[in-house]
């Protein structure tokens, strides 16, 4: 299909969330996923070669157009926003990301301090979600990370996170 790459590019730009290969194939119909994948990587390369302010990034199980990281100072002037997570929220998020599915008491125990506040902020920002309830007395809520977490933290999937073991080696 001559047009395929053009369609894919347009779809990704118009999508609010990272667009997966499956979704693209489903929308276009009658197209091989491998072909979509090939075209996607063509686009990724084209943007890279162009060396402009935008790049196509594979993130959270899909593809998304993003600004180049060194453009951040200018964009911050435009938007006037500051993305910030407190160290407490980051620690809580790290524990959930590595430990999921996890209940609050386990998070509290690791951090040695109550995680209620940071947990609420993470829920509000949709970086973590309630996965269910643990079948133990009290039926505590189980938490896990969201797709949004992958999107925000620039991760293709959870396996892209370095393991705790790797982190330890890094430190030594």
């Amino acid at each position: 299909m001559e047009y395929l790459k053009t369609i894919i590019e347009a779809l990704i730009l118009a999508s609010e969330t990272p667009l997966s290969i499956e979704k693209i194939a489903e929308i276009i119909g009658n197209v091989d996923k491998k072909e979509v994948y090939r075209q996607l990587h063509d686009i990724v390369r084209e943007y890279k070669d162009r060396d402009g302010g935008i790049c196509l990034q594979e993130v959270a199980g899909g593809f998304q157009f993003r600004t180049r990281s060194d453009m951040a100072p200018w964009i911050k002037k435009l938007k006037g926003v500051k993305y910030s997570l407190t160290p407490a929220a980051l620690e809580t998020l790290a524990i959930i990301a590595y430990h999921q599915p996890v209940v609050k008491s386990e998070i509290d125990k690791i951090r040695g301090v109550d995680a209620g506040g940071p947990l609420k902020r993470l829920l509000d920002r949709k970086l973590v979600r309630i996965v269910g309830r643990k079948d133990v007395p009290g039926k505590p809520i189980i938490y896990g990370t969201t797709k949004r977490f992958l999107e925000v933290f620039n991760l293709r999937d959870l396996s892209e996170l370095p393991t705790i073991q790797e982190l330890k080696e890094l430190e030594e």
Partner: protein
Amino acid sequence: MAYEIRLDIFEGPLDLLLYLIKKNEIDIYNIPIALITYQYLQYMEIMRSLNLDLAGEYLVLASTLIHIKSRLLLPREEKDDFEEEPDPRAELVKQLLEYQSYKEAALCLDSRLLLERDVFKRSYGINETDVAGDDETELNLFDLVKAFQNLVSRMDKQELLEIKGERMSLSDRINEIMERLAQVQPLMFTDIIEEAADKRSVIYTLLAILELMKLRMVKAYQSGPFGVIKIFTAF
């Protein structure tokens, strides 16, 4: 003794302890408990003098430290077998190391190219950190209850007296609402309440929405006072 005060950065008692260990360049596997406890208590004193709200957890760790010290001071029991007694510090060291590795993981997360900090994507009409537009305010449960009262008072009183045998359960209603949200978003609060045939199903509908809000499965937004309440999924 002059102390470098960096109170705002302590994320909890373990964090303070790790800081002290690093500051004194101590081997984490061989913590001089007396020294660390002394410094730890001094920090607690500083925090108290600054009127900082000391979380109970700080006291718990202080007592743990003192407990460990007292166990170290006690002479070891003579045992017939050669079983070595565990180091009273082992448990704390394990906890510290685990916490340290997650602290490391948190830093590693923070060093990534974060969306809305280092990289940006196109912004859309609906911002996902704030599903509502500028003029919509997020509602709490009480607003929803009030809206429910308004609706019920508008319903025909005669109709409310009818008794129907139909049974429904809260989880059915929750599932129905989630299914519909999966198809269309947002759902109008008035629509789902008004389509309910009788008082019973109105109540179940409201309870279902309240439960979903409590579980953070859905969010409700309203554009101004008396506006239409819209319900979105929260993920």
